[in-house]
């Protein structure tokens, strides 16, 4: 499992160091300057949650993505309360993991969340809840606005369907109906009105991504 993930991340150009038990993981995370830690909840010698709590107690704020085979609701709450930045239930698609790692690694320390987001012709004012394309105001529903905001935050990085469900709707379960798809298509339709080029790219089997901002 760890080897498969490590190999996959290595192929994506990440520099991966591995620890095979909880004690080594804690040692690694406290001594190496990591951009991101992938932590399994169930580790030999010291479980992932304990490692995470000790890290946070030691004021080490490395973003942590917690992996678990337990999909229980209270496990997730426990994980996030212990200081995890994101949470992924095994088994997961590798593309899902890669998307979440990208989103976390670039997030960095949140000192002051941005109030304006820009990407190519598109600009969002998060305080006034306004979206403009080439300065022209576009009226979006609140959900569509949140959806676009999430994509813009992660501009040029893939955002998966489950990430959108979690962050826009707050759902950690998977509805059978394509509510994400229908909202994306309505948002798209409003953004592209009048036959303008599409700004949101669909990544088959993965999710969505804003087209490179300097392209359009």
């Amino acid at each position, binding site marked *: 499992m760890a080897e498969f993930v490590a190999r996959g991340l290595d192929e994506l150009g990440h520099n991966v160091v591995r620890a095979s038990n909880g004690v080594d993981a804690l040692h690694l995370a406290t001594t190496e300057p990591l951009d991101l830690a992938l932590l399994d909840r169930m580790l030999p010698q010291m479980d992932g949650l304990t490692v995470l709590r000790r890290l946070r107690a030691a004021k080490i704020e490395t973003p942590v993505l917690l992996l678990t085979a337990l999909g229980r609701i209270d496990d997730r709450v426990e994980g996030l309360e212990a200081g995890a930045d994101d949470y992924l239930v095994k088994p997961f698609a590798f593309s899902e993991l890669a998307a979440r790692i990208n989103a976390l690694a670039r997030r960095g320390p949140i000192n002051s969340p941005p109030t304006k987001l820009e990407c190519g012709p598109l600009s969002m004012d998060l305080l006034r809840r306004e979206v403009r394309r080439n300065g022209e105001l576009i009226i979006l529903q609140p959900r569509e606005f949140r959806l676009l905001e999430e994509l813009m935050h992660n501009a040029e990085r893939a955002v998966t369907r489950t990430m959108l469900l979690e962050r826009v709707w707050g*759902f950690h*379960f*998977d509805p059978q109906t394509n509510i994400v798809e229908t909202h994306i298509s309505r948002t798209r339709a409003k953004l592209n009105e009048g036959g303008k080029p599409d700004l949101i790219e669909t990544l088959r089997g993965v999710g969505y991504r804003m087209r490179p901002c300097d392209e359009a």
Partner: protein
Amino acid sequence: MTRRRKSAAYRIAFAYSAAIAIGIALLGTIIFWAMHIAFTRQLDAMIEDEVQTLIIEYRSGGEAELRDAIAQRERLTQQGATLYYAEFEPNGRRVFGSLNTAMPALGMHDIAFVDPTEGADQARGLAVELPDHRRLLVAADREWVEQIDRTVLVTFTAGFLAVIGLGIVGALLLGGYLRKRLRAIGSAAEAIIGGDIRRRMPASGRGDEFDQLAGVLNAMLEEIERLLENLRQVSSDVAHDLRSPLSHLRNALEESTAGSAESREQVIADAIRRVDEILSLFAAILRISEIESGEIRRLFKPVELSALITDLAESYAPAVREGGRSLTWSIEPGLTMTGDRELIAQAVTNLLENALRHTPVGTEIHIDLASSAKNVRIAVADTGPGVADSDWSLITRRFIRLESSRSRAGHGLGLNLVAAIARLHQGQLSFADNAPGLVAQFDLPRS
């Protein structure tokens, strides 16, 4: 014997009879001392009275009268009275009276004397001073008190021994009986462990504590058997539900080994989709068992129900419209409750998706949120073909898929999950006829 020493039944029975024996011994000791003290006092009072009488004699008639009285009394003593007399000179010599003892100190004491017939003996005596520093001693033989003491002692010793004897016999009988009753329950339990799960605890029919215990254990065994049956049912259902997608998957993969590279890619994409379906089946099973354990209750928080249902309706409306159906809603504003926001969302989502999946194009779906004094009701109504009312209790069961919907996608856990979520919130899921169509009513208690 070691087995008996380990046996709680024997231990309790023996402890009980030992307690009774100790009680008898204590009672005997108390009675012995109480009687001993009382009779000694009586003896003392008798002696004091006699001394008083003699002193009155002395005062009225002096030395001669006193000796006369003593001599007279001693004659009577020969006929069975119990008092003895002695008069001493200041130098300690006995000058009168037949009580053969040395001169005692003044006051009441136990004294030793020599009985002319029985030899050395014990007595209780009171010595008083006469004029000229002579002393008068009146004593009574203790024989009488000692006899009573002996009688009490013998009676209670016999009683004590009898209680111990009876106690041992009783403890053996009682212990044996308790062990027999317990062994009957134990051997039934062993038979159940050995695989005979239909075996039940024996009852004597007397309705005593053992029968009550057997009754409770039997009720527990019934429940366990029911759960086992349920578990067997569920696992065979899971196995059944897994077999067809897995064999499809296997066949598709097998065929793809002969196909072209492009078709193989298609097969792989297909395989991933099928595996995802199987995983979602497992996720649903795990989710239901987690909800049924009730542990999530500790995570309950206030939920703005009106806002949540509005949000869900608005989120679903476009998808429903794309599917050729319509979605309308009427939502009472400002309703809140205590619960798990996501689970309620999932329950409503499942009801909505059921209404979507099992109805033809053109169906109107309506979500209604309204409150009564005790409940809030989320009703999802459709104008589809409906469900026969005889099937209403069936459709919330695990893995139940009505014949009419066998061919459609789904794992038959959706409504079971909704019912589990309702129970978790102390609510319930019920159905009604929408004429035409079905109304699913999800009731939750108001907070």
